[in-house]
């Protein structure tokens, strides 16, 4: 099962990446090369196995914690926005999305 140029275009759109025609071509070759080594993995019988997300769960129960829903950080709006590409009156600016 090889990827097609249409697959590359679809994935690039999902990933919000603009690819030039030559980049797309190279990506197609490289991804197909990569999925060649993935084939071995697909043939492994994994029926009845639970996926391992937190590796230490292999030996003990790991529960992801929830913290109390209280404000713990001071307001740092200015520091948080100092590396933003476009800010006005404390708000992040984006191109117009609603006419």
């Amino acid at each position: 099962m090889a990827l097609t140029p249409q697959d590359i275009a679809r994935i690039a759109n999902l990933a919000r990446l603009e690819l030039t025609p030559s980049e797309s071509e190279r990506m197609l070759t490289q991804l197909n090369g990569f999925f060649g080594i993935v084939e071995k993995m697909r043939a492994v019988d994994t029926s009845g196995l639970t996926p391992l997300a937190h590796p230490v769960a292999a030996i003990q129960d790991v529960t992801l914690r929830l913290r109390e829903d209280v404000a713990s950080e001071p307001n740092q709006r200015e520091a948080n926005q100092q590396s933003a590409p476009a800010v006005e009156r404390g708000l992040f600016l984006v191109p117009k999305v609603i006419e």
Partner: protein
Amino acid sequence: MTSTALHDLGVAQLATELRERRVSAVEAAQHFLTRAKAHQNLGAFVALNEEATLTQAQAADARIAAGTAGTLEGVPIAHKDIFVTRSFPSTAGSKMLAGYQSPFDATVVTKLADAGAVTLGKLNCDEFAMGSANENSAVAPVGFDAPAPVRNPWDTHRIPGGSSGGSAVAVAARLAPAVTGTDTGGSIRQPASFCGITGIKPTYGRASRYGMIAFASSLDQAGPMARSAEDCALLLSAMCGPDPDRDSTSLDVPAENFSAKLNDSIEGLRIGIPAEFFGEGLAPDVRAAVDAALKEYEKLGAQLVPISLPRTELSIPVYYIIAPAEASSNLSRFDGVKFGHRAKNYTDLVDMYKKTRAEGFGDEVKRRIMIGTYVLSHGYYDAYYLQAQKIRRMIADDFQNAFKHCDLIAGPVAPTVAWKLGEHGNDPLADYLADIFTLPASLAGLPGMSVPAGFGESGMPVGLQLIGNYFHEARLLNAAHRLQQATDFHLRQPGGL
């Protein structure tokens, strides 16, 4: 004490000199800053801020004078540019974050500062820690106007390894006594091996990931890199500990003094030797150095036990599905809105996203985002991502079976010594395949380290990999320290420095 000898001291010795006030923290900082600039051709540093460094050093001197010195008081260290820092830009080696100023420090950075360490600067790495050669950095090193290769000080025409390449070079070239690195699939162990230094990745969840720019969240771990296991133990003791409010995957395992058991005897220690790590892919020069180190362990009273890690080869596809999947999700935050690069010309919001990401990310990052997006997309998730997570459990179980017969596992870190700059050219698969021996422990979340074990082809360093069971960092460091008491590979240094 003359200042010319300062860079020959390890962390433990330098901390003693500082505490006993034979040298000041300011003198030490100045010495290493001068050295970093004198050897900037190696491309190790991407940011220095002398004023910030000297201010920290003055504060360290004041604490030493007041008798409130921490364990690392005044010791200059440098951070991989994956950790965010308030006093230095944080770029993750990416154009996307050029000049980014973090409003906060990573937990690991704070913890090391609390122990008294002084920050010298930030170190080069592969973009978002994705790479095995440090050839994927998009940031100009200190002293350069454009991105330039990080050079292995043992042979400046060779790669230093990656992704913590700048970190390994800084220690190997004596530009810092110790540094931080991060390891997702081998990014501490492999450059440590290629540059002839010592590095350890702790159990997943022991060091906080807060403020480590995320690549693959279920794999990323911070760890120290230094010349010796003794020095790594000092830093690791300061870096670990629960961070319950800021990292949901941080484990509730208390901080530990990893120096306490360094000198314990290893008489009777059972070292597992996985057959799959010694197959035909292993270069003869690496094999010879690793075999010699294992013989040394036998002389020290350890016992070598044959074991099997049958899914070693499968760890390559499994890792290169899981890590890109998590990366594609983590890197979706780089959209040109809240921080980082934004394209200049675009037609609408989606076009702005696409052009921003096309301009901001390098080739390897784009490849991994594409792989990750594909394997998580509708209709493919079960066949790829879920299947990989299931085999990941098999790999973790294989280790538990092996640990029934041994106390730790040893083998090579990488199949070869460091290759030549540009040698893998436009073939990303060549880099992926070279990760084969570090990926299994990463997928299982086990602690692993690289210890200098000798030299191979062209006099390039070879590292011995030690893998421990969960939370057995102290045992790994003990075994590494005992080897370093019997050998001097970790004390050798490249010529011309």
